[in-house]
């Protein structure tokens, strides 16, 4: 069964032996000159924190290409810098070296071509649900009528139309999550960056939101980069899963999940994929736990 394929991260071919355990090898994107440009391309992204003389290498030469319309999941132990990477792609933070390219052009600061959904959401409690969804459009200077129309559309898409006038604290966790999704979609960015968006939710709500996200992704054709520490979630959602190493964050390996959609998290094939990825990740998780115990 060729459900999943893996390849080592670029630039690390020599160090890492590629194991083929019954899955096809992924094609290398830089193979042909006629290759379409990637929607998102990370070139040698390195991030170093300097605090009081000592420096911490958070991200180490990250190279990654994401095709338009692709759903990429990034998994890694906590503290591996995967959230930071999203902030870099969103332009909220600048790397020490390396470049973020969108459609082959340097990305610069935050732009309307990318939208990040934060782990803690960052919904504005002083605005109603509808005003939250309209916020990005308002910043773009779009007229009220058009704003309202778009907000209505995306609220319908996440099935929250009847809560448009509510304030965010009146909603449940899953509903708030959907508001954040609608808010990010409303500006119609090509790239959605999602930072462990479902981590704080109960399992049932999460399963439901997986289905919804998959549907919305297929309906809107956005490119999604989705960060999680939940391997099953990554296998459930991603076309491709990149595994990060623990400190410094590097891409250890990439897996392609060749499973038909819509998927279910209980699918045995998804479980098998998750198992393969988890085996690869376990070593890194152990490293992160060791570090944690040493500190405390």
């Amino acid at each position, binding site marked *: 069964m060729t459900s999943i394929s893996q390849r080592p991260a670029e630039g690390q071919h020599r160090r890492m032996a590629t194991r083929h355990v019954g899955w096809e090898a992924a094609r290398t994107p830089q193979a042909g000159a006629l290759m379409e440009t990637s929607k998102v391309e990370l070139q040698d992204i390195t991030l170093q924190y300097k605090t009081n003389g000592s420096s911490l290498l958070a991200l180490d030469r990250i190279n990654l290409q994401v095709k338009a319309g692709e759903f990429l999941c990034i998994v890694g132990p906590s503290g591996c810098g995967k959230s930071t990477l999203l*902030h870099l792609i*969103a332009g*909220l933070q600048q790397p020490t070296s390396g470049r973020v390219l969108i459609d082959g052009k340097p990305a610069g*600061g*935050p*732009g*309307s071509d990318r*939208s*990040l959904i*934060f782990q*803690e*959401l*960052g*919904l*504005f*409690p*002083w605005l109603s649900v509808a005003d939250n969804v309209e*916020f*990005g459009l*308002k*910043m*773009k200077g779009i007229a009220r009528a058009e704003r309202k129309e778009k907000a209505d559309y995306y609220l319908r898409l996440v099935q929250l139309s009847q809560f448009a006038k509510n*304030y*965010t*604290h*009146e909603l449940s966790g899953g509903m708030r999550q959907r508001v954040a999704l609608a*808010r990010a979609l409303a*500006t119609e960015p090509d790239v959605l960056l999602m930072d462990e968006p479902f981590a704080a939710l109960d399992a049932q709500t999460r399963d439901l939101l997986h289905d919804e996200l998959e549907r919305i992704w297929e309906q809107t054709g956005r490119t999604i980069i989705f960060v999680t520490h939940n391997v099953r979630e990554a296998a459930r959602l991603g076309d491709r899963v990149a595994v990060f190493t623990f400190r410094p964050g590097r891409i250890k390996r990439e897996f392609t999940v060749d499973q038909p959609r819509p998927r279910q998290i209980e699918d045995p094939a998804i479980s098998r994929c998750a198992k393969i990825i988890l085996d690869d990740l376990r070593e890194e998780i152990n490293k992160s736990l060791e570090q944690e115990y040493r500190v405390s």
Partner: protein
Amino acid sequence: MKSASRQITFYAIAIGLWVLVARLHIWPPYLFPTPKGVLESLWAGFADHSFWIAIAVSMRRILVGYALSVVIGVLLGLLMATSKFLEQTLGSLLVSLQSLPSICWLPMAVLWFGLSEKAILFVIVMGSVLSVTISMETGRKQMPKIYGMAGRNLGARGLKLFLFVLFPASLPYVLTGLKQGWAFAWRSLIAGEMIFVSLGLGQLLMMGRDLNDMSQVIAVMILIVAIGYIVDGLIFETFEKRLQQRWGLTTTA
């Protein structure tokens, strides 16, 4: 409403005692008026429009002065919150200036601006801008960073980021400071008016003294308390409650 009945009883007894002492005629009525005399003064003051004019003049001054100090204080506070240098230099100066009663700015104001509206505005601003600045600074720091990031992520920049994100996000944290700033502004205004400026409630109060009319003095004091209470207890409190409800900060539904 047990507290309400207690309050009513308390005020009834207090006024009763007041009437009783006044009836004993230990002091002449112009030094110790009856409640009735005070009520008559209040009535007369409103009837001949002098109270209305004084209220209008004082309210205009405080609105302008307070608005100025909110604008200045919010901007200064934000600047100080973003710059370690400003916080350590200007910040320490502002904290030490806070111990200066605002009326101490009056001589400076008079020398600079003369006996003018500008002088009284200066006193009001100096009296209230410090607490607004300091609370804005701490509010900006306490405010979760996520709002600023979310705002930038959604395309808010510069002035828009401040107006639509940073300012509303910090409101619950600065509200106490805004309230305190108002209270300081109100005290500074009355003090300033008492000493030199024409018209206004403070000046009415001093006029009562000049005319040896204690009932007018008390009537104006009641006015000052009433206005302070209305603004503080009703306007600010209502605003605070609504804000807390909207943010979901209240525990009671």
